[in-house]
């Protein structure tokens, strides 16, 4: 059976092309957070492109919505509808402003409440694969501010942590991602465990049966992993499964609605260590002349 030169060349090229992803996978297995220069170049083009398209479609959607609303009101009554339209438009703008105000207020309150050094970031994109739960964020305070592993929080609770980062764009691996692991505790009794991602809106954590855990209990970060600051809400227990042995599995619904987050906070540095001398009462020398003379 004769094998043509073309077949051999094609076979070699196919093997070469299949070797590329295998080599990429090999590199990923060695260091999952590493982004090469070529990776950065590709993301440098793709990130702004996606952000620009999001912005354009948002503008187009807003324009289309206003146009449809206006035409409906004109059909009903031209004069009254004009006034009505303006009022409704104003009410909608006010409601939008109110919502934005509330959101910013909550973000500011959180900033004041949390002692860690944080920086805000806006969401610019979402993943498309059912296997990975990742959102793309952009930090407009300069390049290379965020690093892999940094915790990402929202006013409602923990979002996830940065998986990959380049320039001012970062991929945030949500706590529902199958790769996510997070040290948590039940707020009421401090039963500790490792929270792992399970599905679109569920996480799992196993804790000892010694603790009485009930549906509705709040789960928060324990700070043991030194990645997330202690005491941030993670979610609520929605189901409990008794396992064979001394463990019970808790199903936790995240407190953050990942499809509704717009602004998140990236924790840049841990809170300063507590001052060991703070509780120590120092005896002050009495000043002369202030003590009554008996």
């Amino acid at each position, binding site marked *: 059976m004769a094998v043509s030169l073309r077949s051999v060349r*094609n076979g070699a*090229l*196919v093997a070469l*092309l*299949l070797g*590329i*992803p*295998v*080599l*990429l*996978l*090999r*590199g*990923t*297995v060695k260091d*999952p957070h590493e982004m090469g220069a070529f*990776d950065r170049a*590709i*993301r440098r083009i*793709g990130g702004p*492109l*996606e*952000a*620009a*398209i*999001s912005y*354009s*479609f*948002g503008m187009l*959607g807003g324009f289309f919505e206003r146009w449809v609303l206006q035409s409906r009101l004109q059909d009903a009554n031209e004069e009254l509808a004009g006034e009505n339209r303006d009022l409704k438009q104003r009410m909608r703008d006010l409601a939008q402003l109110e919502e934005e105000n509330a959101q910013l207020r909550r973000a500011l309150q959180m900033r004041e409440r949390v002692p860690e050094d944080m920086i805000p970031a806006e*969401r*610019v*994109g*979402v*993943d*498309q*694969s*059912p*296997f*990975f739960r*990742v959102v*793309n964020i952009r930090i407009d305070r300069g390049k290379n501010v965020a690093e892999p592993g940094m915790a990402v929080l929202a006013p409602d609770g923990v979002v996830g942590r940065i*998986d*990959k980062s380049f320039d001012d764009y970062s*991929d945030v*691996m949500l706590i529902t991602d*199958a*790769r996510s*692991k997070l040290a948590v505790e039940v707020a009421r009794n401090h039963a500790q465990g490792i929270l*792992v*991602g*399970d*599905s*679109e809106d569920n996480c*799992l954590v196993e804790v000892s049966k010694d603790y009485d855990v009930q549906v509705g209990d709040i789960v928060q970060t324990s700070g043991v992993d030194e990645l997330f600051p202690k005491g941030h809400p993670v979610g609520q227990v929605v189901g409990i499964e008794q396992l064979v042995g001394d463990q019970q599995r808790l199903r936790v619904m995240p407190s953050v609605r*990942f*499809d*509704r987050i717009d602004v998140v906070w990236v924790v840049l540095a841990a809170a300063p260590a507590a001052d060991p001398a703070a509780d120590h009462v120092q005896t002050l020398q009495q000043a002369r002349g202030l003590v009554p003379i008996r």
Partner: protein
Amino acid sequence: MLRAFTHLIVGWLLIAVTGGIAEVLGLSIVLPATSAVVVAHAAFSGERELVPGLAVAVSLGYIEDLHQGAPTGVLSLSFALAFLLLHWAAGRIAVRGWTMRALVSLMAVVLVDAATLAILLALAEPLGIRTGALVPMLVGVRWHALATVLVAPPVWALLARIFDLFRLEPRPPSDLHLDAR
């Protein structure tokens, strides 16, 4: 070569457009795999050349890896394997009409997702993935597949239109006969 380059550029733009629209509409589950449709088009249209099509699949998979925050190489390998199967099927199935285009795209996205799942299961330990969480995620695949089926005809039509515009489609044999006469 120009066909492969066009597939790659259109595929990349579609990834960005899908991500952008999903962000505006607040969608997170029912998102189409436009790259799977592009790879299906590369496998079933034109001269059905193996090497340029495989290069498109590997490159688009790599871009998907970077855009979706997947471990680099996973989707690249998935798209490559899916393309090889689609190329094999292209020699046995004739794709005519919207229904067949949608079905072929469905086949592509199912192959890509199946390959992705298999690779993730195989590399779960070194990549730090909990295998128990991968199987429930298959529920999301059906919405992914449905969205892909719905966008497949317009994406296919867009690609056909671009290829016509730049005269990248090979001339059918009947035209050659007409010229000879």
